């Protein structure tokens, strides 16, 4: 199982801090497609972080990884 942290409007929209997927390994692109299908999430502007680093679409996510969805940031 892969646990995906959600922040800001995604946390409010999905109603959860963490989304859990059944898969054990998938690419970032697949993960976003999966989330787009399951939730009414606009994935266009989303980044995915793996172990606190921005990941590329072809990077792979496995069960041991810390995964998070990063909407456009607005700090500062």
């Amino acid at each position: 199982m892969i646990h995906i942290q959600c922040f800001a409007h995604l946390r409010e929209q999905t109603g959860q801090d963490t989304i859990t997927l059944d898969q054990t390994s998938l690419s970032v692109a697949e993960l976003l497609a999966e989330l787009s299908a399951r939730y009414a999430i606009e994935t266009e502007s989303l980044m995915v972080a793996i172990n606190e680093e921005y990941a590329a679409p072809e990077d792979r996510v496995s069960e041991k990884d810390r995964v998070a969805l990063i909407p456009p940031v607005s700090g500062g």
Partner: protein
Amino acid sequence: MYRITSQPIEVEEVTKKVIRPEAGAVVNFIGTVREFTKGKKTLSLQYEAYPEMAEKQLKKIGDEIKENWPDAVTAITHRTGKLAISDIAVVIAVSTPHRKDAYLANEYAIERIKQIVPIWKKEYWEDGEEWIGDQLEKTPYSNGEPGEVKPS
């Protein structure tokens, strides 16, 4: 040197982290909550962070500064939680031997914070609230990671 905190930020404390005998100049950037933005009145703000990653990204900004200005030392603290008008959201302190570099490196830091640090701002107005984002109109997976986007 790179911290996310839910407590009020003390400018003095962040400044002291970068003062040292080799430095003759410290430039601070202090971001405060502004009441009016484009005529719209803000009542308060809420900042949320992905703290572990945010601190890593702040450190990354410090490393980038080191690459461009080898004599610079950087400290950054960003606050999270509910903030009132005039509260301090972020303090960036950069020290250098000569002042010009401190201004440039400091400005670089705030530009980069707005690009790559996972912190989000929710604005509360009289007539509603909204998570703010995408001000820079980034298209994340078309230009590579935001780390490659150069500040304007």
